[in-house]
């Protein structure tokens, strides 16, 4: 199960556009994806409400887990890229 810990680049954190983009990508991937603070309970990354409820701010670290599947590695890379991009600029 591929996973990676990344730091949120957007100024607003995982909120507004950055959160929507992440949730859309996770829903479209067709694989189960979870996200959470490292070591804490993870939530469904395809749920905007769950992602918002994490209250992740700019500079916070999050761990993304992608369930095993054909494209798992690619899905993880795509999601990590979204989190590492500052969507506010």
């Amino acid at each position, binding site marked *: 199960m591929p996973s990676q810990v990344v730091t949120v680049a957007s*100024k*607003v954190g995982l*909120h*507004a*556009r950055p959160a*929507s983009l992440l*949730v*859309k990508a996770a829903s479209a991937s067709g694989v189960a994806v979870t996200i959470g603070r490292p070591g804490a309970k993870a*939530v*469904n990354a*395809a*749920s*905007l*409400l*769950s992602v*918002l*409820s994490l*209250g992740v701010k700019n500079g916070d670290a999050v761990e993304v887990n992608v369930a095993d599947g054909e494209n798992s590695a690619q899905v993880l890379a795509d999601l990590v890229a979204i989190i590492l991009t500052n969507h*506010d600029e």
Partner: protein
Amino acid sequence: MSQYSGIGVSPGIAVGAVRKILGQKVTSEISGTLEEVLAGLKAVGAQLEASSEKIDLEVAKDILAAQAMMANDPSLAEVFENILTAGQRYSDVRPLIEEAFAGFKNTLSALGGYFAERVSDLDEISIRLLSHLAGVKITKLVLTEPSVIVAEDLTPSDTATLDLKFALALVCSKGGATSHTAIVARGLGIPAIVGATGVMDISDGTQVLVDGRSGSFILEPSQDQISNLRKREDALKSRSESVSGPGKLSDGTAIQLLGNAGTVEDVHSAMKVGAEGIGLFRTELLFLNSRIEPTISEQVELYSAVFEAAKGRKVVIRTLDAGSDKPVPYINAIHEENPALGVRGWRLTRTSNDVINRQLEAISIAQKSFDVWVMAPMINTPAEAEDFASRSASFGLKNCGVMIETPAAAIHADKVLAKVRFGSFGTNDLTQYVMASDRMDSRLSDMTSAWNPAVLRTIATATMFAKELNRPMGVCGEAAAHPHLAAVLVGIGVDSLSMAPSAIGEVRGFLATVDLKTCREAARLAQAAESAKEAQSLVVELLGE
């Protein structure tokens, strides 16, 4: 009931059909099953997606798209699956639906700031879901014909997303004289009534007569009622149209009349009615309409357009007054128990110092050779005034002044005003703080009037200090827009009055009928009264209707 009354906050007469906004809460029991609830969420999601595609305004589009995603959220569906048993019919699903939303709402509220802002999205979805299950159509945002808008309250973000060109009048069941509805209505030049308890019970489509001066609201009015009110309104209006040019009293004493503005269009309206400049340009709208801080170049573009539109006349531009009733999610990110007493206005330098510095930089770039005055909101102490003055100077902004809108600043005005070049009373907040009464609470509307003698005495104290220091004092609160109160303020000794452009004509016409001696007598009577009501009636008796 065929007649309702509230506080008239923007004069004018309107006749039209009621169109209710928001909060069409279904109060009856709503029967339903898990399957119907899940299908309802899908339908609400589709409604929201469709509205998001239809609307032109970018901010509204994003909000609606995010709401659609929430309605389609798999975790929300999961919560419903846990709460409701499949295949079972419930006689009333409302409490279960409220329970399902409560979990997410509590989590988001606890996070504060812009996360807590999303609670209103969940409320919107919950209202739409209940309406869908009850078979009631929800109407929001989209107006297709001229209507009298009736709502509980209109927040700044509502007014940013609402298409107001079809609004004949605004009527709110909540709110006081200085609520945003009042400010928006005056800006648009349409009648408005706030604090009209019970109006949410009126059905959509009912013909009504709105009198924004007296605050009365009549259902199915007769032709006689309409023509009588129109006649009285026209008589008062003609007075305002009989005088033009700079403001002055009947004895020739000059009183500068300025416009309040929040957009370039407002500045144009002010110039059109002959304002001698802009006495308050509010910079919040640019920040409220954006999901992140506007860049320096975006700000320079707006401020330059404002200075251009004022055609070289004086413009008093206020630094960001975010917080309290105008929270900007990405700036006021911490939940405050008591936001009116929290980090707002100039106090933002404690938490978002760079935002204020970038704004001053943008103003200094846009300044060029225009007559620009900068003003800081919520200045409380001489140290804060000094900080603002030295920052302004470092950006080459020479004409700097402060809002006097807290009792501390007014009582200490001899020291506060010594640090800067001018002052301006923000009577809305000053009243709220002197009277310790929330301006949004309609139950306290008698306390939130600037006619309260305690408020007028506070203004008189600070004005006396300003005279000793030779600092010009203005008023930029809603009080300046009320002709009788404007005369009282002139009698107290203020030099300029800044108001919604729609009020300038009436105030100019009224001031032309009184002399300085009479204004001083009005000021004395009002300050000696025991209540706002007594102060107002004594002054009306002295000066005439």
